[in-house]
């Protein structure tokens, strides 16, 4: 039995594990990938990420310290008893400060202010689209497709054509390098903006985007997209949304700091997500939503 401390769990993930724990049988749980600061599990059809405190809360995160050793096998008993979450050979002891964290921000209270939105757009202009190493035909082609389909998606959102939105999202999904491909990062950011900007068609647009991505991307990217479609996001995004809604003179610096922390996430993921978010805010502004 390997014991580690569990500091917090996202609400949906905690519910998922409680449901798995309700069964006396072993559940399908397997390790998908292991990194320096995270271990991704597939629990049934869902992704659960054990992350170190430096990564912070996320829509399907369990914050543990330290990361446990590899989980061998595909079936494991999950149970919560006596302040400890057991997953196979792991014992995740609930820390005294253990919290269940809600990945959905209070969207109704966190509407980006127009001035803050300008700060974000200015920060984004400075960032620009991630510049990938050029030189191969396939890389050029990926860049061209990303630019083309994101423009297409922007136009389809403005015309509120759900079938076209779904098709454009489908073309973007899974496009680009990495574990969460650039196209998916862009879509996740876009959906968060539809929530932040209170777009009048946000649920239907998010559903169209999410359904366009099904089976077209990696499991991890799919999990982020599913969360974003329901208005769920990382703690870093909560910080940015708070900064965008801040009426104080310090908003500009707060927006830049928060956007910087998002940008630093992953290799290019943060930047791609911010680009999608900026485009989504534009789409909201175009229909007179509250941004």
């Amino acid at each position: 039995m390997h014991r580690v401390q569990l500091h917090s769990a996202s609400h949906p993930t905690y519910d998922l594990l409680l449901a798995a724990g309700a069964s006396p049988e072993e559940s399908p749980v397997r390790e998908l990938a292991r990194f320096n600061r995270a271990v991704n599990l597939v629990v049934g059809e869902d992704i659960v990420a054990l992350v170190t405190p430096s990564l912070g809360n996320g829509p399907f995160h369990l914050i543990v310290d330290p990361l446990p050793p590899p989980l061998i096998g595909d079936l494991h008993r999950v149970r919560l008893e006596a302040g400890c979450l057991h997953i196979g050979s792991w014992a995740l002891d609930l820390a005294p400060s253990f919290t269940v964290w809600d990945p959905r921000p209070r969207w109704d209270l966190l509407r980006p202010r127009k001035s803050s939105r300008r700060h974000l757009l200015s920060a984004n202009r400075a960032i620009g689209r991630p510049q990938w190493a050029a030189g191969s035909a396939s890389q050029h082609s990926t860049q061209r497709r990303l630019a083309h389909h994101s423009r297409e998606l922007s136009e389809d959102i403005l015309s509120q054509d759900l079938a076209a939105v779904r098709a454009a999202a489908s073309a973007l999904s899974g496009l680009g390098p990495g574990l969460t491909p650039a196209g998916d990062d862009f879509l996740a950011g876009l959906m968060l903006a539809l929530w932040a900007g209170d777009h009048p068609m946000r649920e239907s647009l998010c559903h169209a985007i999410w359904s366009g991505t099904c089976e077209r991307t990696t499991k991890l990217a799919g999990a982020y997209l599913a969360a974003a479609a329901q208005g769920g996001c990382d703690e870093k995004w909560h910080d940015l949304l708070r900064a965008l809604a801040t009426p104080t003179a310090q908003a500009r610096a707060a927006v830049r700091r928060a956007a910087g922390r998002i940008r630093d996430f992953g290799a290019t993921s943060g930047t791609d997500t911010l680009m999608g978010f900026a485009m989504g805010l534009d789409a909201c502004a175009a229909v007179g939503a509250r941004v």
Partner: protein
Amino acid sequence: MVIQTLVKAGQYYDSVTLLQAAQALLALDGVEDAAVVMGTPANRGILENADLLTEQAAAASADDLVIAVRATSEESALGAIAHAEEVLSERAAPEAGPSDAPRPRTIAAATRQLEDANLALVSVAGQYAADVAREALLRDLHVFLFSDNVSVEDEIELKTMGRERGLLVMGPDAGTAIVNGKALGFANAILTTPPAEGGVGIVAASGTGLQAVSTSLAQHGVGITQAIGTGGRDLSAQVGGIMMVEAVKALAADPATRVLLLVSKPPAPEVAEAVLETVRACDKPAVVCFLGGKKDPIEAAGGIPATTLERAALIAGALATGRDPDDALAAVRRRNRTLKNQARELRAKLNKNQRYYRGLFSGGTFCYETQLILAKMLGKGKVKSNAPLAKGLLLASSNVSEGHTVVDLGEDEFTQGRLHPMIDPALRNRRLVHEARDPNTAIVYIDVVLGYGVHPNPAGAAVEAVYEARDRLKKKREVLFLAHVCGTNTDPQDASRQVDILRQAGVIVMDSNAAAARLAGYILKQRSA
């Protein structure tokens, strides 16, 4: 033509790792195109269009990693696939499980693991950097502070603390240093004294300035003792040159150092006075290159002024090896005399509308030096920049050239959210193609900076852009592509190999940034004459 693919289930890497793996494959002989991507339907579509899709790759799932190579022979293709696996496994190695020895997360833990350490290299987010540097100083460690976005107040506090404790604080935003033969940041493989002949001690408030003089010394067989980077803000009126003064004192007291070499943009006047005061007190020859600064105060302090980085290195190298600096400079004068004829020949290749210079720099000091030289040759106020000599010469948009333009692509506006152009030249390469397409462009210049930690083949990346630019011009006109390689033959990229790559692509390669600027000046001067 042969296409080979390898599909690996359950292998996950971040985007940069996959891109770097792909770039490593593209640099191999015989490889025409390569991709290392997750097997999503969209990426499989890209592979198909790029003629990289095999049946095996077509059957990959979104969670499979696909390595695809198109090569001139089966041997090259298979070799490339094996190389990709090696690159990926190297990147994966540090991500092994918790059984690995713990990596220190704090200065305290690091000093416990390495009790004899006397220097800390700090490269953390700017908001935390000052605290980490402070802790290092408290533990009697010299500090190389690579991080930027450290406040000037913190910088003053850290440097004052360092001075009081007899410790160096190199940075913040220090790009390069070589301490006791150890290269820090973007440094090059240079010669050190001992064993090499020489003994030049360098203090520079500019990363590329330091690289330029240290590589030039190495190319002439002259060794350095130490190369201390102070960070660009050290010579501001606020910071007062605290570290340059301390570094000069340290090198003055170092028995192995025979000649001092100081490099920076012109300091604030009161700071220049303080620095030159230490030069006056030093009993060793001191070559001072305050680019664009006045000679008189340097000479009055007993220093030897140098107007360019190239001249600074030649004078210091000659003094350190007992040669006459005039002899060393004579070669530069001879070369400069040939530039006019070379310029005339090159000018004949341009049409009458091609009259502008476009310099795309990864090194800020090269950008600055070029502006100084062109201003002298073409007239003040003729060259615009995002990092101009005077406020009135600031580009309205850094992305849009106006007349003669030099752009420092290492400035924050270009590096936020992106890798520095010395590491990832993609942005500069795109700009190169764009500038070449402007019918008024006569010359496109690039500085190719080598060393540890920078792009593995910057010349190779640049010539692809040159070829693309030529393809797009469709022989309508010829644009002159000019370059200078800052590096040594022992750098990982091998300077002579980089020069060959550029020359084979028809790029005119000069042996210094100053020479390249002068050649451009002559071409454009003759054009406007």
